[in-house]
């Protein structure tokens, strides 16, 4: 089967700072892939470029064999790519459920159908008991979950997760890992995640792409990557234990 997401020679500069340099990788259909690397390596830039937040300087992105570069964020989402934000962006004044309903309304105009769908997702992510609270009252781990719930409600075929494990306890992390595995296995959801929490990367990803200073320096299975000389030097450190 062909790759669901194909990134070819993607480059992006911000006023001379080369955030992403000629990056090429692909995510096969049904896979879970991880994008790792030190802070400032260009991971979020890569996500934003895929998601249409800013246009690439050069290179191309195709999704399901169709070019998607040049599309605006809402068009990328409609094409079937859901995303979360590293710095969470809840609709603070709306309830948890209504946050998710907004996402669900992409695939249906019927508000009560969207509410039902959103209710199921809220339960799945373990936010059921807080569904009628304003999103502003959530703790950070719950806000991260809300980001995921909202993105899932748009019924994506590819989910881009930007550090959803950061700042949560190992127990909560394992819970999220379980949720993603389940989504991947039962719904065939393809996932590309940016993550610093190696515990999650090792548990979830079948393949890992390592970025440093905007360039891909390594790729492979998690086991291969953690033994890679260059990766150890720039990111994981000599004593890496995972």
């Amino acid at each position, binding site marked *: 089967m062909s790759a669901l997401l194909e990134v070819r020679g993607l480059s992006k500069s911000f006023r001379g700072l080369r955030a992403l340099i000629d990056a090429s990788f692909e995510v096969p259909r049904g896979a879970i892939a991880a994008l790792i690397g030190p802070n400032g390596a260009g991971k979020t830039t890569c996500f934003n470029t895929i998601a249409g937040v800013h246009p690439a300087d050069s290179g191309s992105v195709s999704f399901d064999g169709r070019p998607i570069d040049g599309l605006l964020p*809402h068009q990328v*989402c409609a094409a079937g790519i859901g995303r979360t934000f590293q710095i969470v*962006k809840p609709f603070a004044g709306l309830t948890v459920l209504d946050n998710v309903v*907004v996402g669900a309304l992409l695939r249906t105009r019927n508000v009560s159908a969207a509410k039902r769908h959103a209710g199921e997702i809220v339960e799945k992510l373990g936010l059921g008991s807080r569904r009628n609270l304003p999103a502003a009252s959530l703790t950070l781990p719950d806000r991260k979950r809300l980001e995921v719930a*909202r993105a899932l409600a748009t019924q994506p075929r590819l989910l881009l997760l930007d550090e959803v494990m950061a700042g949560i306890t190992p127990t909560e992390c394992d819970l999220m890992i379980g949720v993603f595995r389940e989504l991947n296995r039962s719904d065939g959801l393809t996932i590309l995640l940016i993550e610093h929490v190696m515990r999650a990367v090792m548990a979830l990803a079948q393949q890992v792409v390592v970025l440093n200073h905007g360039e891909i320096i390594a790729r492979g299975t998690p086991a291969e990557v953690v033994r890679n000389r260059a990766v150890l030097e720039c990111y994981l450190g000599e004593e890496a234990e995972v």
Partner: protein
Amino acid sequence: MNRRAAILLAALGVALAALPGFANAYVLSVATLILFLAYTGQAWNVMMGFAGQLSLGHSLYVGVGAYAAAGLFFHFGIGPWAGVWLAIALCAAFGAAIGFLAFRFGISGVYFALLTIAFAEFTRIGFDHLDWTGGPGGLFIKVAQRDQIDLANFRGPPAMYYYAMLALAAGAFALCAVLLRSRAGYYWQAIRENEEAAQALGINTFRWKMAAVLLSSAMTAVSGVFFAFYYNNLFPEQIFNISRSIEIILGPIIGGVGTLFGPILGAAVLTILADLITELLAALGWEIPGIKQVFYGIVLLVVIMFLPHGIWPALARKLGVGK
């Protein structure tokens, strides 16, 4: 909406419908003004309260709407039932121009508000130089015969204007209640809360913001038509004045931005209190020019300090009704 809210709303509706039966001319004129501000505030609330786009130039739509209908009536004898469509079309065109300029070129927040003021101001100056509408000297419609109702030309006794405004305010309330629970309401609120996240969830924010501006300007156009046929005289200096824009938005802000009932409550509280104070001072023999504006300022200050979400959310909790 729960049962309690439905009962309260029905009681309010009955009281308002019965009001002309026992109110004197003064009370009726105050009530008409309240409904006018409630309706116009509701229209403004669609843009700011729902979609988060701050307009400080809504006098533009009142003025253009008023002049469009009054001009047709004055020059060609065309009644407001036809004129209101021209008013709506012109105001929607102005709204589209402002919205397109702002949203296409990424002007938002305070800068968007400044753009709305700019449009209201240069339209005011434009009308000062437009002879067709009488320029700065004003446009006057023949005052209504108070004892006979001429619905076709919207001329008649004060009670007719009161009921017209009541119907508009009730209609706008119902429309907003439906919209807020529809996909449009969810999308507007999402844009208001976080535009970037809204885009990431597949919302074409440009299109939905435009929709809010178009609806708001079209609704406000109708206020303008009412204004023209109720007050019978129009001056650019007055109708496009920024103080009118401020007066429009004070109601929703004090009542509760983004709530359905806030614009109505805010308009009532402000108008009644301001009138009471003016009357009281007049009775004491103190005529202080601008006292109303000072009073508005104080009320605004107090509300923002103690009830930053407006009076209605707090009152709704006390009454045990939803937003």
